[in-house]
């Protein structure tokens, strides 16, 4: 599985992704937290379409769209994790 390990110590932030808790590091973007946890292809290119994976992590590729705290289609790489944040993935263009 494509995961990432950490070489720096940061406080843990817990977010909820598709109903399940996910431990992230403070300072992570939502996209990085998902990628590091091995959840690469978390948005689809069309309703029922094939998965799309983040490419750039800097707001260019729109391959990381997710529903974040009720806002559909957010660029998950541009939003930093926050305790209690609710993320929905798997929909097309980040519709959760």
């Amino acid at each position, binding site marked *: 599985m*494509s995961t*990432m*390990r950490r*070489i*720096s110590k940061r406080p843990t932030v817990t977010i909820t992704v598709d109903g399940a808790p996910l431990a992230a590091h403070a300072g992570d973007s939502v996209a990085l937290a998902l990628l590091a946890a091995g959840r690469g292809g978390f948005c689809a290119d069309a309703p029922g379409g094939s998965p799309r994976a983040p*490419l*750039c*992590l800097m707001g*260019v590729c729109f391959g990381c769209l997710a529903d974040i705290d009720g806002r559909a*289609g957010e660029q998950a790489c541009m939003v930093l994790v926050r305790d209690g944040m609710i993320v929905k993935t798997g929909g097309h263009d980040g519709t959760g």
Partner: protein
Amino acid sequence: MERVDVAILGAGPAGLAAATVAAGAGLSTIVLDDQGAPGGQIWRAAGDVTRDRALARLLGASYGGAMEAIGAAQAAGAVFHPACDLIDANGDGALVWLDRANGGLREGQARALIVATGARERAVPFPGWTLPGVINAGAMQIALKQGGAVPDGPVVLMGQGPLLLLVLQQLLAAGADLRAVLAFDGAVPSVPFGAMARAVFGDPGLVAQGARLLLGRMRAKVPVYRDIANLRAVGGDRIEAVAFDSDRRRQQIPCTWLGVHDGVIPNTQVTQLLGLAHRWDNAARCLVPVCDDLGRMEGAPVWVAGDGAGIGGARLAGVRGARAAHDVVRALAPDRHDAPAARALAQTAARLAPARALVAALWPARDPLALVDDDTVLCRCEGVRVGTVRAAIAAGASGPNRAKVATRCGMGPCQGRICGPILAEWVARDTDTPVGALRVRPPLKPVLLADYLTLEQE
């Protein structure tokens, strides 16, 4: 409606230097950036990185001058608007942005605009590049800077350019399991002596850094493959291996991550949206804004600075940002124009230029379609494949915008940022016409309908 003298788009080295000069001359100055903290990509998460001992040791060299530049812009009185996505703008200096920190669309009106939106990595399409685990090498560095996150499992890097060499060193230092480098470039570049001498004389630091990185790749105990052909990322729902021909032999290397990089290109979204002139730089294979030495564009009170004005690297970016801002001061408040400082900056820019030219000569841009087949996805957002676009061009699509309406290539949420430059170059080549560009439309990033309703009505 926020009325200011100067609005600066982007808080990287160029934007921060520009803000320091403009605000320092007493002009009311705002700096918009889509990130939550200033620094741009090169100085991303500067505070976190410099405070964290492990990261500072690994990345610190890139952050020289970061805290000083951020502090100087703040001390000069520039107002930083973090987490703001520019949505719309026009040549009269009217701006609309989404304030993600506070919610809602905001409007601004500036007498001068300095566009310092930096660069993005050039897209490199190949079969399987949409598989999770395939990622830009620059994104691997972002993971490191932002979260101290290192790709786990076997890693392969592919491409060329200084950033790829830097990421190679940083990943090795971070203990990544690097299995191979698929190099687009040669082992030892050949450079004319004169060009090398000018570069060393003008910017010895940059040349030394480049030499260290090249040597680093040679010394790393990682196999380097060259003359890559028939490349494919192999896997089901994520990458499991990379397969390719090298020296006419088929290779297959298992990996969980493939980092790809083939240089960077300017972010021209804003200047294109403004309808200002751009030209195709044939050597660098990218679109660049047409501007004078100071970054001033024709037809609107707009200046460009930093990599967004044509790739120049971080050292030059700060100089170009400051020069643009001096010119803005000269235009808006001539009595406060610091001519000697502007002249000194011009000399610095001239001194740094040869080293930058050397970098460009060492890693010439490649054919962006070198690795595709007809089944390769070109437009990741809409899932449009190379063969579909090929058919549209054959059927008479005589420009990128015609190819776009015929295939939906470039119509998705990224609005052609990834596939657009490739499409434009391809159509031009096949139709023997000048390279165009996908038309940039508002909103610059997709906006919730609910957010539009927060715009104050006239």
